[in-house]
């Protein structure tokens, strides 16, 4: 039985958003739900948001909705900041990272004062992803507000990317940051078509100069933290290390922890301007853990 009070989520049209929420409220005694939704996808998420509203009403859970947007990240940051600071009276916060963009995950986690609040995160795997495409029309990569580290002048940039199904976006990040070294963490395993859509496609970088490939498992207990740490260690003090994840959502937790452990490193987000309406189908296993 979970013992969370506040539940923070980002609304999505994916099956697993609503199915996951139902799973959570069955098992927990939530008192508040903070639901963010993107202006750009407001129409697509309206049905699920209404459903969450109804479920909260039935369970007598206080539910507040906040609109944020991809195109105005500063305003979105401020909205989150205003809602998260002052959460000192809340005993437990559960952050549902399933359909939450990585930038929002990192912003929320960094704003919660862990001196007062116990933080957990939850992630629902889908049953399957769409095979055609997941995201398109990439926007400019960006460093995350307040998590851009401490710059070392006169040293090269090292870029860590955890690859995902849109392997071509790796090139976009490399072109943008022009690092001297790129560390590519490739998710292990055959789950969810990973072999075909990620491992096979990442192989094209094997022979590229300045690129080092390694395997990582975001679904293990530390979400790849130790493996990634081993690979970034030689670069932490000698480069400006920028870390980004295009891979499994749980790897965002590993990167967040690494950023907290090594505050000189920067977290970068590679936004997309178009998501497949059929991004994923169904719901698979659920991961719940404390931060």
């Amino acid at each position, binding site marked *: 039985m979970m013992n969370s009070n506040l539940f923070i989520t980002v609304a999505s049209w994916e099956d697993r958003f609503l199915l996951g929420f139902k799973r959570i409220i069955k098992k927990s005694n939530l008192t508040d739900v903070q639901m963010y939704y993107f202006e750009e996808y407001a129409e697509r998420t309206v049905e699920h948001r209404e459903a969450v509203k109804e479920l909260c009403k039935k369970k007598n859970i206080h539910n507040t909705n906040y609109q944020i947007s991809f195109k105005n990240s*500063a305003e979105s940051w401020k909205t989150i900041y205003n809602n998260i600071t002052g959460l000192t009276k809340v005993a437990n916060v559960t952050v549902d990272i399933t359909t939450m963009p990585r930038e929002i995950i990192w912003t929320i986690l960094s704003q919660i004062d862990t001196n007062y609040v116990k933080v957990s995160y939850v992630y629902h795997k889908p049953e399957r992803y769409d095979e055609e*495409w997941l995201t398109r029309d990439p926007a400019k990569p960006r*460093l995350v507000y307040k998590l851009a580290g*401490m710059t070392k002048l*006169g040293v090269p940039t090292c870029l860590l990317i955890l690859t995902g199904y849109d392997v071509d976006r790796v*090139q976009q990040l490399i072109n943008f*940051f022009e690092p*001297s070294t790129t560390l590519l963490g490739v998710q292990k395993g055959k789950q969810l078509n990973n072999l075909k859509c990620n491992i096979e496609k990442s192989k094209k970088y094997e*022979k590229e100069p300045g690129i080092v490939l390694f395997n990582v498992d975001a679904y293990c207990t530390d979400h790849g933290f130790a493996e990634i740490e081993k690979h970034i260690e030689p670069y932490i003090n000698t480069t400006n290390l920028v870390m980004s994840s295009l891979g499994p959502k749980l790897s965002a937790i590993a990167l967040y922890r690494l950023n907290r452990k090594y505050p000189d490193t920067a977290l970068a987000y590679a936004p997309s301007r178009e998501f497949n309406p059929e991004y994923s189908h169904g719901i698979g296993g659920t991961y719940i853990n404390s931060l």
Partner: protein
Amino acid sequence: MDYNNPFEYASAFKLGADKIVDFYVPDYNYSRFIRSRRNIFLVGERGCGKSMTLLYNSVPIQQKKVEKESSKLKLDILCVHIPCNTPLMYRREYQLLNDFKASIISEHFLVLKIMFDIADSLSKIPNLTKGIDESELRKELGFLLPIKLPSRKPVLDGLAICCQKAINDAEKVINAKGPNVFYENALSFSSGVLSLLICLREIPKLADSHFALMLDDAQVLNKHQIKVLNSWIAYRDNSLFSFKIATTKVDRPPLHTASGGEIFEGHDFTSIDMEQPYQNRLSDFGKLARDIIRLRLKKTGISILKTPEEFFPVNPQFEKDMKKCEDSVRKEARKKFINGTQKQITDYVYKYARAKYFRDRSKRANLPPYSGFETLVHLSTGVIRNLLEPPYWMYDKIISEKRSKGEENPMIDEIPNSVQTEIILDRSEKKWAFINKGLDETIEKCSREQAKQLENLFENLAILFKTRLLKHKSEPRAISFTISETRFEHYPKLEKLLILAQKAMLLNTYTSSAKDLGKRETYYVPNRILWPIRGLDPVGQHARVSIKAVHLWAAASENKKIPFSKSENTEERGLFNDEQ
């Protein structure tokens, strides 16, 4: 990759000082402008040599060069390389502040970065402060700048440390949780950079020095930094400092200043287009390309005596077949121009000999055996990185094969023509795969619809150029185009599309004079590596196809073929009149 590939084509930063000194070719381009007291913009897309030019001229590399040559560094113009593509410049916390505060913190970061690079660069000059009392200089710097220099370090090293500390102090404040956190002790250009330069002039050896502040990748600066930079460019007195700004053509920063004014080309700065229009042995780029390859072969000890043409030999059968075509076309020309001049004959051969080779090939024949140094230069489309990329993979292939056969230190004295053909076709195929897969997956702000339109556009350009190669009467090998009749409602959409193609490195542009009254006109040159897999001739001719905007748009948006007429639709340029 643990061997020394002479055709390393990645960013100039990765080459290291020795290779920059060895590989840089200072002639035939505009790098001489760098060592002037004028404000200069170097404009060009990725890979055209902007960073290499700036780095080569920078103090540390020049110091390395004079050490190699056992000579002495000239201190009249000191070029300071200031790379902007660093995580510091990507910080976005200024967006959480109001415009005034955002502008101040943005300038502070840029000023400290410049000051650090000045100190770091000058610290590479040996004995610069020899014979002067450093404590006096330290005092003066401490008086002018709000910093306390460490007394145990050489003054310039100490200054670099202070800049690093000042940046981190500001970052600590900026990284704090709230939205309105603001760093109070911010520096401006005049309180920081200008004070520093004035102070440095106190060093006797620098008393008459001019500081060329070379900002590389300036397109990444934020809007506040661009405005202050433009304001500094507008500063008319260039006796103490000037700016050399390298930026991409697409996304080139606007020219507004912080006070609402604007800087003007010719008045405040001079622009240099780093993309070179033509490639043949006599053109500037042709000479530059030859020297680049020759130097790389020589300096890496791979082939001291061989010329680039010998290192990249042409397929002998191709050469033989081409010779036959030339002879046959020459005969034809002599019949056509019975009392004609030699020029008429030569021009005729130039126009039709290569076209005849491509026209006479059997439909069932394989793709032509693309090879030879000249072909590589044409395939580069005037971009140095494009010139080096195929040779890099050719060299890599041969080394890998030799190693797999057990050779530990394989020697390569030429790239066989078969390997050249294989790699050229492979790179060409990969470029099309990049287009066909959907540019919306990699190119910023490219929608799915635009990606499809670009795929259609390049497909239809390939069809047009192929049709021309096989059928056009006067300019069969034209593979660049201009756009006519641009007063067309969808022209802005077409323009956006062409900008995306430039971003994707699929299209190069440059301006040249049009026929009517010397008006300047934009020439569009698709990346020539696209053509081999389509059986086209990447060695274009000095002509461009004039295409109506409405037809280009229809090709892109409706996948309609671009109209072709056997004898019209082309404007010929004089053979060499556009060459720089």
